[in-house]
């Protein structure tokens, strides 16, 4: 039984973000990390491996060369090997192009379970898992608060409007998990040392039998403007007053905004 975890390198939540002249995110300028929600997918895969449900945990990322750092960090948490798909022609790729390329790489890696995060921090579409499932012709088990592998089926626990469902599909599947699977582990010093010797391959688009023309450049969408959000009026602070005065001010404020009569 083999799992491939798809992970993306993204700018750290705290990093200052900048756009290049052609309105792409300047990935070289920002401190880069594993997409935080993909760490939960890694954690889920490693727990399945520790429980003996899975033999091999591999990682797959598409991105610039420096994404190798994210894969190395994942290998330091655990798992066996990693593949990076990197090609200058992929800069600025959108959900469709990303899914197309990952699907081509997954055709070669042929896992029983492809595991993804519920969303990437930068794109936030939560589209790649479903698009990869559609392109590869596999069932999708999405937004799992837990993933289990039982015999030849995958099962997830999925939140509903007022409770939860158990959703099942025959393997092979594409699955995505949420931040409810359990807190991601830290890489130990031993893990970091071990990661240096784990195999990592880099594939180009040509290695996958694809060309930039197959991907409509790299995107079917384009950004025409990037700006800072509209500034809000400054915060009004109520402090160093008695609770009664604070409440009186809140009531006035609510009434002025017609939130109470």
């Amino acid at each position, binding site marked *: 039984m083999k799992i491939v975890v798809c992970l993306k390198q993204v700018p750290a*939540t705290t990093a200052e*973000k900048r756009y290049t002249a052609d*309105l792409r*995110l300047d990935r070289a300028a920002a401190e880069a990390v594993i997409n935080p*929600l993909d760490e939960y997918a890694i954690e889920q895969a490693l727990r399945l491996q520790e429980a003996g449900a899975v033999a091999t945990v591999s990682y797959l990322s598409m991105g610039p060369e420096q994404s190798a750092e994210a894969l190395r960090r994942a290998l330091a948490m655990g798992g066996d090997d990693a593949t990076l798909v990197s090609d200058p022609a992929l800069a600025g790729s*959108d*959900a*469709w192009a990303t*899914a197309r390329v990952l699907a081509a790489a997954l055709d070669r890696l042929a896992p029983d379970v492809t595991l993804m995060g519920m*969303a990437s*921090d*930068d*794109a*936030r*579409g*939560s*589209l790649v898992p*479903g*698009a990869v*499932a*559609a*392109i590869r012709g596999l*069932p*999708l088990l999405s937004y799992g608060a837990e993933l289990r592998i039982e015999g030849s089926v995958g099962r997830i626990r*999925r*939140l*509903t*409007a*007022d*409770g939860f*469902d*158990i*959703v*099942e*599909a025959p393997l092979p599947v594409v699955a995505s998990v949420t931040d409810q699977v359990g807190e991601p582990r830290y890489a130990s010093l031993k893990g970091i040392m071990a990661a240096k010797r784990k195999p990592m391959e880099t594939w180009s688009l040509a290695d996958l039998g694809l060309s930039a023309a197959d991907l*409509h450049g790299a995107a*079917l*969408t*384009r*950004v*025409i403007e*990037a*700006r800072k*959000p509209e500034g*809000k*009026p400054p*915060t*009004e602070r*109520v*402090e160093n007053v008695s*609770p009664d005065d*604070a*409440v*009186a*001010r809140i*009531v006035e404020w*609510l009434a002025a*905004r017609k*939130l109470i*009569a």
Partner: protein
Amino acid sequence: MSSDVAFLAEFADGSPSRSALELAAGAAALAKQGGGAAIALAYGKGAAGAAQLGSAGAARAVVLGDNTNPAITHATAAAAAVREAAPLALLAPATPNGRDLAAALVGLLGLPAFGPVRAVRLDGGTLRTEQATLQGTVITVSEPAEGAPQPAVVLVLPSTFSPLEGGTREAVVTNAPATEAGPLGAARIVESHPAEAAVANLEEASVIIAGGRGVGSAEGFAPLHDLAAVLGGAVGASRAAADAGWVPYQLQIGQTGKVVKPALYVGCGISGAIQHRVGMQTAENVLAINKDPDAPIGEFADLFVVGDLFTIVPKLTAEIRRRKGI
């Protein structure tokens, strides 16, 4: 190519969801600009009754499947319906089911995808979307690349459009073209565990009283429920409060919870972490009550009250009751 605008209309328990009514209004408004019509692609329990979406703005409705199966299991039927209707754009709710079905269409048909967005418009026939990216630090405007296939798939956040009121039309209903569902159709719900008590749908609430780690316990939420009751609102939470088991996860607001846009959000004992903020920053009015004068929520709330929530919240409830004479 038509000027029609399609939308994914999710049904649950026999009725259209709030998102279906919002997107019907949005699709109708966009379609009207080019003289086209709004077309619903309906799925979920009750979808066979999609004619009622006519009063919400849809001229036509295609039923993908009237069952509780995960939305993505309708993907090949949806793809066939999209090919047949050839709309300019397809609006999808930015809900788990909506995103999954939209994603499958992107994969099956090779379509441009946008969002989640908070605004969609047509500029001289070109579809443009406005999206908050990178945890809301940047707003980007996007459009389909030259020569990109149609429709453009747009994920739309809750409360981006308001449902139409008072309509009486019926939509013309057809069934989706017959297709093989294939492996995408194989996922099945094998167990359902509804909660014992009703859980509020935060996306529909116009007032949200949210509690965080500062609330301290499940019982600590009682004064928040009281305040929500006098304001006609619902109680929400941070992930810290949901993780602690004080409230169900359905009430979590933020990156991995609900994205809400109420008229009033009141944060009680919530620090305002970026992952929480992305779920509530488009609330029209933000009041925060926190005993730490340096809490980050104090940097983006409209009114920031430094104080103990267990003193302020009950007094506020009492004062509002007194004013209302109840």
